[in-house]
């Protein structure tokens, strides 16, 4: 406890007690203990680099966010909390925002963090590389004084939207003095990133682990609680289970172990499973209908096929209950924009058959028509979903040619060549629907060769208009109403069937305290985690 002054300790303990409400453990009774090493993993592979400026998927996001911080963060209660920014205020017309930065923050190399860094990030990193679509209206960024930045926009920008971008995956703050004048994407420093975060990279052993040490000059004195953080990678989920059982892993995010193992591991009471902390990166499994095919230009056909799929069966059998049937395009964990007032497609084979008959596709010679079904092979469950959907369609006398290609081939067939009739894919959306959710439906989401966008080719001016309005609507209740309009229209038009909302699980030992407290916990700095041992 020598590292703290008494006052600081009381302050941080109070903060932790507040946060631990979300964990709901006995942690509130005792104060956080500093020190110790936390060994963590996640349900995927090693990152290609510790920091990938363009995004790079969940793996580098996991490793880079322990070093790079953002201006804000979003709690599980969906409130924005200050991190590097103390305050972000819109002007009256919402065309500019004033950002007040935290004082006395230093980079890991000792240089001070200032407004220039934020200006550099906004104009040279976020807008051109990481958040281009979201920040297309950004016109300029200007440092008014060393701790104040003003962002100016071409059009009104809703407050929740901008804060979501700044608190999101693409809003990492990187040092100007290291990146200025270099190619950010290929700068070698990305393998040993330097940030303002609570942890410094000590060593990355490729193929094995990355080791972080406590940043002793972190701006929040007393934090982080841990002395050391180790992120390890196993390619094999069964081995991760074994590592938990042997006590060699403390925490694993995003489904680190096979779902059937969860009950066995948590039974002894030493390990818990937690589903909080994923609402800002909510995953769904979808079926997408290629509108370039004549047959899917008919809305009735798309709707009929939606009736043919038993989503409850998929949740219960393929995901062992750790997924829920989707209601519309918005993930059910999105407590701001979610709505139940959408067109539902209950499982009804007879109705599906009747709809197909009416649409002009009766059974002829034992088959209505032939479909090529591509199930993207990046999740194990997609293989099973592909087999199930094939069976479900065949029950309607549709001939199905199923293929489950590997990751690279799936990306090419679905998003570059549009070489499919029906595709099973996955996407993860943030709480803010623009652009991560809307771009699957809007016309400007159609970009050949760009993955996880509108691959169906669906285009509807009415839907585009709703999204366009939502982009500039600054009054929150009106935005929510527009989001509901969007979801309703998308569900009636049915270019995509959101099948199930996935519920990722974090596995942790019970003595790991204060985890899963933010809306995208995997991508937080983990400064407040502590070990009760």
């Amino acid at each position: 406890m020598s590292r703290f002054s008494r006052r600081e300790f009381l302050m941080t303990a109070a903060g932790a007690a507040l946060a631990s409400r979300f964990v709901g453990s006995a942690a509130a009774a005792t104060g956080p203990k500093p020190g110790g090493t936390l060994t963590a993993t996640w349900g995927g592979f090693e990152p290609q680099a510790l920091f990938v400026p363009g995004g790079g998927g969940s793996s580098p996001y996991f490793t880079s966010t322990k070093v790079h911080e953002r201006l804000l963060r979003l709690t599980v209660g969906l409130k924005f909390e200050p991190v590097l920014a103390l305050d972000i205020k819109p002007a009256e017309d919402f065309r500019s925002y004033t950002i007040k930065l935290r004082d006395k923050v230093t980079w890991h190399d000792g240089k001070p963090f200032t407004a220039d860094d934020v200006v550099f990030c906004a104009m040279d990193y976020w807008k051109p590389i990481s958040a281009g679509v979201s920040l297309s209206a950004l016109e300029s960024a200007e440092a008014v004084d060393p701790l104040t930045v003003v962002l100016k926009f071409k059009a009104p920008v809703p407050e929740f939207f901008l804060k979501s971008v700044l608190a999101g995956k693409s809003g990492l703050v990187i040092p100007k003095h290291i990146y200025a004048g270099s190619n950010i994407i290929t700068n070698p420093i990305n393998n040993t990133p330097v940030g303002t975060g609570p942890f410094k990279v000590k060593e990355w052993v490729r193929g094995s682990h990355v080791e972080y040490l406590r940043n002793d000059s972190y701006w929040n004195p007393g934090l982080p609680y841990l002395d050391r953080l180790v992120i390890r990678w196993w390619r094999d989920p069964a081995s991760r289970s074994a590592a938990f059982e042997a006590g060699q892993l403390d925490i694993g995010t995003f489904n680190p172990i096979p779902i059937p193992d969860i009950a066995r591991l948590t039974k002894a009471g030493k390990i818990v499973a937690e589903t909080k902390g994923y609402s800002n990166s909510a995953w769904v499994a979808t079926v997408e209908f290629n509108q370039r095919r004549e047959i899917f230009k008919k809305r009735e056909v798309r709707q009929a096929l939606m009736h043919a799929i038993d989503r409850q069966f998929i949740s219960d059998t393929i995901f062992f209950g750790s997924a829920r049937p989707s209601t519309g395009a918005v993930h059910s964990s999105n407590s701001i924009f979610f709505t139940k007032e959408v067109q539902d497609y209950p499982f009804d084979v007879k109705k599906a058959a009747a709809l197909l008959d009416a649409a002009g596709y009766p059974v002829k010679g034992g088959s209505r028509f032939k479909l090529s079904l591509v199930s993207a092979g990046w999740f194990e469950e997609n293989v099973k979903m592909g087999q199930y959907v094939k069976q479900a369609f065949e029950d309607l006398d549709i001939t199905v040619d199923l293929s489950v290609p590997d990751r690279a081939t799936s990306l090419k067939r679905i998003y570059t060549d549009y070489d499919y009739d029906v595709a099973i894919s996955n996407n993860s959306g943030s709480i803010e629907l623009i652009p991560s959710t809307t771009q699957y439906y809007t016309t400007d989401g159609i970009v050949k060769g760009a993955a996880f966008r509108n691959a169906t080719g669906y285009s509807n001016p009415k839907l585009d208009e709703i999204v366009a309005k939502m982009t500039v609507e600054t009054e929150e209740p009106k935005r929510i109403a527009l989001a509901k309009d969007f979801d309703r229209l998308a569900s009636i038009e049915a270019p995509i069937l959101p099948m199930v909302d996935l519920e990722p699980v974090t596995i942790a030992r019970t003595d790991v305290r204060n985890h899963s407290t933010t809306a995208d916990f995997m991508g937080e700095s983990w400064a407040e985690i502590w070990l009760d041992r």
Partner: protein
Amino acid sequence: MRRIVVRRLAQIIPLIFAVIVLNFVLIHLAPGSLFDVMTSEQQVTDPAMLDQLRHTYGVDQPTWLQLAKYIWAVMRLDLGFSYRQNAPVLHVIMEQLPATAILMLAATTIALLVGITAGVLASVKVNTIWDNLISFGAVFFFAAPSFWLGIMMTVLFAVKLGWFPVGGMRTIGADHGAFADALDVMNHLVLPATALGLFYAATYARVMRASMLEVFRLDFVRTARAKGLSSSRVILAHVMRNALLPIVTLLGLQLGTMLGGSVVIEAVFSWPGIGSLLFDSVMSRNFPMVLGVLVLGSLLVAVCNATVDLLYMRLDPRIRVR
């Protein structure tokens, strides 16, 4: 001897060339490209940015030009730059190759020691309970998939008994000098090397047993016995030395497949070798990395095979004459 070494080295060059061309073509035949994977991971949608990246990764050039450039680079000992890892290919491979080399070396040693001992034992005690037990064990370890064996060994020795670590190569963060470090690595090595080695030990045991029994029947063994040598001397100096040749042949052939087997073992034990690197690179169509691993891997195998050839001559001096 020197002529053989020189000839062997000369053969490596066309081999490497063939490895490059063949694998380059194969990778380009697979649908999907590094570009697809990288842009999807980076969530790039801006068409201008897509074009810029196409140029950066060099995928806007015709395939034959990419191949020609690659061969020219390899001739200058440059394996290229991996955009996915954001580092030079050689640098990334060299970070992970030693771990695989250690694993393969240890697995081979275990395979040879266990396999030869078991084979000799089975042949000496032929048609006894020992012979049957060894034959059963050999069939079992030959049939059991190495990832299953790895997981079972982890469950027993790491989870239940707690004798060995579940994975990794070193105790992370421990810094206690070279000797303790070597012990630490060996401790981590036991399970993966055994899981990988037992499969090969099974083959060696079977081959060794058969080849021992064959040599036992030959005239010179009867002569050796007749001149009054002790039975252990006959077995070790006369029979075993002659029975070893097929094992050495097998060893040379299996070094290549062992590299493949280590991919699975590295996945199970989170061993930081090039196996997972190769797997990832194939999945992401990262051809500079795939080619780099294969070029270095084939070099390694070629060198090992040349060594095996030299071993032949040591074991059977008649081979030198031919």
